[in-house]
């Protein structure tokens, strides 16, 4: 698969654009890790969450202080707030959170396992301004429940998908973490999602971080990665459900065909997060060594405007397999969550593995 002149030119232009975006580092996507409590026990959890977390939920008012501060420099309508966890539905004041975020002018969404979602809860969230929702379905029943560590999880997410799929005011997508067990049943999952009226499906591999390090069955080999990319290409040829590879990794020659945009890790460039303990980072699954400050010690915008150097200038990432890689100018060292600290090599490069 060789790239045409047009695609090569677009890739080069996009690389210049990405470099420039890092200089501008305009915040447009803010995660709020609103709780670390979770009702599932997923094998691949990057947060290592538990039902009863040692860290208490951040009071809503503390997060609203951050949003009011951001509003002094940004148009809130252009900053997407995404509630994550843990499991956001574990918060009893979730509707209140949504209402207050909406009243400040921010669009908001949430990433959920859907276990506690019911029609009334969803209606209340929509009335609180919910604009986007992401649910997970990680295979058919047996494999989904295995990954999620709960025998009722599949039935719960099936129910949740039926609830969200026809709500016009809320955009949705479904995420599947592809692993050795579920890769052979992707087409069955896809047909199920189409049948339920789901409009978008995002496929991930599982990063070797958090609990996932301990399970070899979670990690795809070269043949499986290639199969996954080819499968996504095939799915994208029909419009019944918008299928894409997540923006977790650079896809080399596949990159421009397996998703709607080219790979660009925007962690710390356009994406920030406020973690449950007040720490400020880029994406919530970034290694704790990349925490840049804490909202309980200094204003969020001081941190966002003046720190994050290691994410906005990624030349330090040119080590390990990236050191002499001719693709570095396009991937900039890959995704931030695959680095353990600002000297470490990437934990994984899918493109590099495909070349072996």
């Amino acid at each position, binding site marked *: 698969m060789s790239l045409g002149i047009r695609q090569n030119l*677009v890739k080069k232009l996009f690389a210049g654009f990405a470099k420039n975006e890092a200089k501008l580092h305009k915040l447009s996507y803010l995660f709020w890790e609103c709780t670390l409590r979770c009702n599932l026990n997923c094998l691949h959890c990057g947060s290592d969450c538990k039902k009863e977390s040692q860290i208490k939920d951040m009071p809503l008012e503390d997060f609203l202080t951050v949003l009011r501060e951001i509003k002094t420099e940004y148009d809130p309508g252009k900053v*997407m707030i995404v509630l994550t966890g843990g499991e956001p539905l574990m918060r009893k004041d979730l509707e209140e959170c949504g209402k207050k975020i909406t009243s400040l002018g921010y669009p908001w969404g949430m990433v959920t396992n859907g276990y506690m979602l019911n029609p009334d809860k969803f209606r209340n969230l929509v009335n609180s301004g919910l604009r986007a929702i992401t649910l997970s379905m990680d295979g058919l029943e047996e494999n989904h429940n295995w990954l999620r560590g709960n025998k009722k999880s599949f039935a719960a997410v099936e129910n949740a998908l039926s609830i969200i799929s026809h709500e016009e005011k809320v955009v949705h997508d479904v995420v599947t973490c592809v692993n050795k067990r579920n890769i052979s049943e992707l087409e069955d999952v896809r047909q199920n999602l189409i049948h339920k009226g789901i409009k978008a499906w995002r496929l991930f591999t599982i990063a070797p971080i958090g609990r996932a390090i301990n399970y070899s069955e979670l990690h795809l080999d070269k043949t499986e990665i290639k199969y996954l990319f080819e499968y996504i290409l095939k799915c994208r040829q029909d419009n019944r459900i918008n299928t894409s590879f997540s923006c977790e990794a650079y896809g080399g020659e596949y990159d421009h065909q397996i998703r709607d945009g080219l790979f660009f890790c925007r962690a710390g460039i356009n*994406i920030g997060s406020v973690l449950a303990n007040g720490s400020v980072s880029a994406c919530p699954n970034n290694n704790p060594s990349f925490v840049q400050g804490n909202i309980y010690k200094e204003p969020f915008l001081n941190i966002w405007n003046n720190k994050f150097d290691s994410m906005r200038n990624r030349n330090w990432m040119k080590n390990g397999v990236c050191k002499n890689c001719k693709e570095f100018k396009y991937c900039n060292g890959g995704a931030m969550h695959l680095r353990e600290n600002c000297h470490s090599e990437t934990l994984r490069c899918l493109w590099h593995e495909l070349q072996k």
Partner: protein
Amino acid sequence: MKLPKIKSSIYKKVLGMFGAAGFLITFQACYGTPQNYANIEGTISDNDTQQGIEGLKVNIVSDSDSLSTVTDSSGNFYTGIITNDRNLKITVEDIDGEENGTYNTFNTSVDYKNELITISLNENI
């Protein structure tokens, strides 16, 4: 910050010429939700002078949302709107009288694919 802003605008225009503007305007964090809204960006200019027109009210209606914004001194507008099918109805109104020229109300529909929207208007003379 002025130079990177200018550069950003040039990159957007050039990538837009290659049909790749959609790569730039919306994105999704890898472990986040989709941005459920389209970030609408466009320019309204005078057909004769090619200069951007300031102070026009831009009303945008989608399948599930509606909102208004006003063009800046360069005729640019930028806003986010909830949309599922991305079919947008746009109405441009001159709301500042003779200031910045006089223009008739203009209606158009677009099948929005994240491209920069460009609209040219004829001034009433």
